[in-house]
C-alpha cells in the first residue's frame, strides 16, 4: 500500500487535461463550473474548486498547476499587482490590469462576464431605516456604537477596511475579523450591525440586507473575468473563443440570482451552471450534467449524513493518509535531527528556532509558496510538505527534551563502564527518552489532524473539503460532515498513540507510565 501511495504522489498532472480553478466562495465556484462546462467540448477538463483564496489561485496559475480561473480586476490590481493607488474607472482598471498581468506574469485576461462584484458595506434593512443611513458617509455619527464583523481578507486588504476607514475618516470602536458566513448570521440575529459584503452575494436577499452606497467612490471596480495562462492560449487558441462566449452574459442581478440558487436554495453548482448555460443557448440541453455532489437540498442532518457516508469515508481515508504521511516523514526527519543536535547547545537552539519560525508562517502563505515549488504543485505532495513542516516543532522539541532529561549521572556511568557513544544512545539515552519522544509524536499527530483540513485550500482532499465548502455556503450540515469525523479521528488517534506510548516504554519505567496514564 505504501508503494501505491508513493506512486500516486509522484504521478504528474496529465498534459492534455485543461484544469480550471476557483476560489473558496460560491460565486467563484459557480463561474468555475461554467468555464468547465464550456471547455468540456475540447476534451477532458478538471475543476479544482475551493482553492484557498487569491494568493493560492494565482500561484497555482503562474506555476502551471491550473490553466484558468475567474478573477476580479480590483482584487488583482491591489493584491497581485500590489498597486496602492486606484487605477480609475472600470475600463481603465481592466485595461491596466490586463496589460500588467500580460507583461509581468504571461497571464491573459479574457473579456469580462459583465457584472461588477464590488465590496460593499451592508446592514439589515430594518437597522438602516432605524438609523436613517443610506450611504457610507451616513455612518459617521454612529461610529461609537456600531458593531462590525468583517471577513479576515477584508480587514487586511488595502482595498478593504484599512483604506475605507482612511478614505471616509471612519473609526469604528468594535471591529471583529471573522468568517464571512458567520458574520452574516450575526447581523441577521442582531449581534452585529455591519458586515462587508459582495454586491452580487446571494445571501443579501436571504438575510434582508441593504447595501450602503459608496458615495465617495472608494471601492475600485471588481469586474470578473477569466484569467488564463498565456502558454495555454498559444497551444490551444480555440480556448479563447470558447470562454469569451460568456462575455457580458451576466449582470449584477443575474449573478446574484444564480448565487442565491446555490447558497440559499442549496442547489448544486454544476446543475445551476448548466441550467444557465442552456438558457443562454451556450450549451445544448442534450448534454446531461454529471451527477452533482454539491447539490445539498434541505434535508435534516441525519438524512444528509446517511446520503454522504460513502463520500465521508473516502475523505476520512484521505485525511488519514495526509496525517500518516506528514507525521511519518516528519518523524523520520525530526527524531534523527533531534539526536544529532542534542549534543550541541547552539545546534539545538538553531534547529528549534527554525522549526519555530516555520510554525509562524501563515498556512495560506506557506501553501502558496509550496505549490510554486517544482514537483509539488496543487497536489497532496504540497499538503503533506506543509503538514510535515508544521509537525517538525513538536517532534524535534520532544526528542531534544527527552534526551536532555536523561540523568547525566547515568550517561556518565554508561560511558565509564565502556559503552561507545552509539551504544549509549541505543541502550541508555533513547530508551530513557522514548516516552517523551512518543508524546511528541502524539502531539504532532493530533495537531496534524487539525491542520490537515487546510489541504482543502489547495484541493488536496481530506475532511477539510466539506468544512471549507460548508463555511462558504454557511451549511452547518456540511461543516459537521467534516468536523465530526475529524474530531473522532483525533480522539481515536490520541487514545491509540497513548497506548502505544505505554507499550513502547521500557518495562522498568512502565509502572510510572501506567499510573500517569490512569491519572490523566
Amino acid at each position, binding site marked *: 500500500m505504501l508503494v501505491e501511495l508513493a506512486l500516486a504522489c509522484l504521478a504528474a498532472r496529465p498534459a492534455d487535461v485543461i484544469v480550471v480553478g476557483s476560489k473558496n466562495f460560491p460565486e467563484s465556484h459557480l463561474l468555475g463550473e461554467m468555464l468547465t462546462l464550456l471547455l468540456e467540448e475540447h476534451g477532458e477538463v478538471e475543476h479544482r474548486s475551493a482553492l484557498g483564496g487569491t494568493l493560492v489561485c494565482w500561484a497555482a496559475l503562474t506555476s502551471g498547476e491550473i490553466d484558468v480561473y475567474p478573477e476580479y480586476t480590483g482584487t488583482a490590481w491591489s493584491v497581485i499587482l500590489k498597486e496602492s493607488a486606484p487605477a480609475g474607472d472600470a475600463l481603465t482598471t481592466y485595461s491596466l490590469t490586463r496589460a500588467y498581468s500580460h507583461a509581468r506574469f504571461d497571464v491573459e485576461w479574457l473579456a469580462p462576464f459583465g457584472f461588477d462584484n464590488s465590496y460593499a458595506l451592508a446592514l439589515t434593512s430594518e437597522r438602516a431605516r432605524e438609523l436613517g443611513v443610506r450611504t457610507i458617509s451616513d455612518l459617521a455619527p454612529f461610529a461609537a456604537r456600531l458593531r462590525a464583523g468583517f471577513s479576515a481578507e477584508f480587514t487586511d486588504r488595502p482595498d478593504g477596511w484599512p483604506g475605507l476607514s482612511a478614505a471616509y475618516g471612519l473609526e469604528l470602536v468594535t471591529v471583529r475579523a471573522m468568517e464571512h458566513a458567520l458574520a452574516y448570521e450575526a447581523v441577521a440575529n442582531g449581534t452585529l450591525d455591519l458586515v462587508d459584503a459582495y454586491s452580487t452575494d446571494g445571501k443579501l436577499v436571504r438575510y434582508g440586507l441593504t447595501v450602503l452606497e459608496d458615495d465617495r467612490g472608494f471601492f475600485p471596480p471588481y469586474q470578473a473575468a477569466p484569467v488564463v495562462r498565456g502558454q495555454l492560449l498559444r497551444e490551444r487558441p480555440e480556448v479563447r473563443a470558447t470562454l469569451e462566449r460568456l462575455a457580458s452574459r451576466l449582470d449584477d442581478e443575474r449573478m446574484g440570482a444564480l448565487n442565491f440558487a446555490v447558497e440559499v436554495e442549496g442547489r448544486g453548482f454544476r446543475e445551476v451552471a448548466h441550467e444557465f448555460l442552456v438558457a443562454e443557448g451556450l450549451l445544448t440541453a442534450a448534454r446531461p450534467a454529471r451527477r452533482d455532489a454539491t447539490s445539498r437540498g434541505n434535508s435534516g442532518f441525519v438524512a444528509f449524513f446517511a446520503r454522504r457516508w460513502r463520500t465521508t469515508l473516502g475523505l476520512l481515508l484521505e485525511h488519514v493518509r495526509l496525517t500518516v504521511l506528514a507525521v511519518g516523514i516528519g518523524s523520520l526527519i525530526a527524531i534523527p535531527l533531534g539526536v544529532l543536535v542534542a549534543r550541541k547547545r547552539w545546534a539545538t537552539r538553531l534547529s528549534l528556532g527554525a522549526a519555530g519560525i516555520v510554525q509562524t508562517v501563515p498556512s495560506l502563505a506557506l501553501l502558496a509558496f509550496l505549490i510554486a515549488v517544482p514537483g509539488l504543485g496543487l497536489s497532496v505532495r504540497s499538503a503533506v510538505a506543509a503538514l510535515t513542516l508544521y509537525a517538525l516543532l513538536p517532534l524535534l522539541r520532544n526528542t531534544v527534551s527527552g534526551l536532555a532529561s536523561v540523568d547525566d549521572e547515568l550517561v556518565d556511568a554508561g*560511558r*565509564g563502564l*565502556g559503552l561507545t557513544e552509539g551504544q549509549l544512545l541505543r541502550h541508555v539515552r533513547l530508551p530513557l527518552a522514548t516516552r517523551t519522544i512518543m508524546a511528541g509524536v502524539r502531539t504532532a499527530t493530533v495537531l496534524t489532524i487539525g491542520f490537515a483540513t487546510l489541504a482543502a485550500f489547495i484541493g488536496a482532499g481530506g475532511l477539510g473539503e466539506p468544512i471549507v465548502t460548508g463555511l462558504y455556503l454557511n451549511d452547518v450540515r456540511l461543516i459537521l460532515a467534516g468536523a465530526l469525523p475529524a474530531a473522532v479521528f483525533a480522539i481515536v488517534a490520541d487514545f491509540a498513540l497513548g497506548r502505544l506510548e505505554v507499550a513502547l516504554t521500557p518495562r522498568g519505567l512502565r509502572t510510572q507510565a501506567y499510573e500517569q496514564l490512569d491519572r490523566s
Partner: protein
Amino acid sequence: MIRFDSVSRTYAGRTVVDALCQVSFEVQPGETLCLVGASGSGKTTALRLVNRMVEPSAGRVFVDGVDVARQDPVALRRRTGYVVQRGGLFPHLSVAGNVGLLARLDGWDSARIASRVATLLELVQLEPATFRDRFPHQLSGGQRQRVGVARALMLDPPVLLMDEPFGALDPATRNELQAEFAQLTRVGRPRTTLLVTHDLAEARRLGDRIAVLAAGRLVQIGTPAELADGPTSIATTAFFGSDSMEVGGAG
C-alpha cells in the same frame, strides 16, 4: 599497575576546585588504595583520569605500564570496572539486564550471560532467583550498590575504580558493605582497586594504603598505621584533627 607520573589537571575558569597539581603515586597489583580528601580536593578527578573520563593537562597516567593516552578509551574502560555513588543503575533495565549489559554488547551467548550474572549476584549476596528480574526502583539503596558492584565485575576487570561507593548509604548498610568489601572486590583474582572517599574511617578500614589529597596536591601516602603514627603535613593534621567522619560533602 596504576601509576601517576607528575599529573596535573586544570579547569578553565575554576582555579582550585577539583584541579590536580603534580600528583605522582603508584598502586601495586592487587592493592587497594584509598584516595581521601575533602570536597573539591581533586580525588574524583584523579580517579577519572585512570579510565580517561578526564584527560590530564600535564603528566602521564599508566595502566599496565602503558600510558592511557595511547589506549583506546572504550577498551580501557572495559578493563577497569567502574562503580559510582548510588549505583548508577539504568532504570529501564532489570537487575540481570544491568549486570549483563556489557557482556551482551560483547556478544556473549545468553546462557553464558545468565550463569555469570547468577554467580555475581550470589557473590554480592543477592539471591539470583529473587532479584534477577527486579528493576532498580524496586531495590533498596544497599541492594542497588551491590548490583552496581556486580555490574562492574561482569567482564572480570583487573582494575576496579570506585567513586564514593558507600557514600549515599545509611550507616548500618554502609557498615555491612564495608565488612564484605574484600569478598566483593577480590573474588576470582586479586584486583587492583582505587577507591575515592571523604570518610577517613572508611579509608582506614578498606585501604591497604591511603593517599591524602588537599587542594589538588598529594600531601601524604602510606599505610593506615603510618598515617596514624605521624601526620607529616599541616593538611593531614587538619584532616585527622577533625577526624574520621564527614569533611565536606561528596567530591
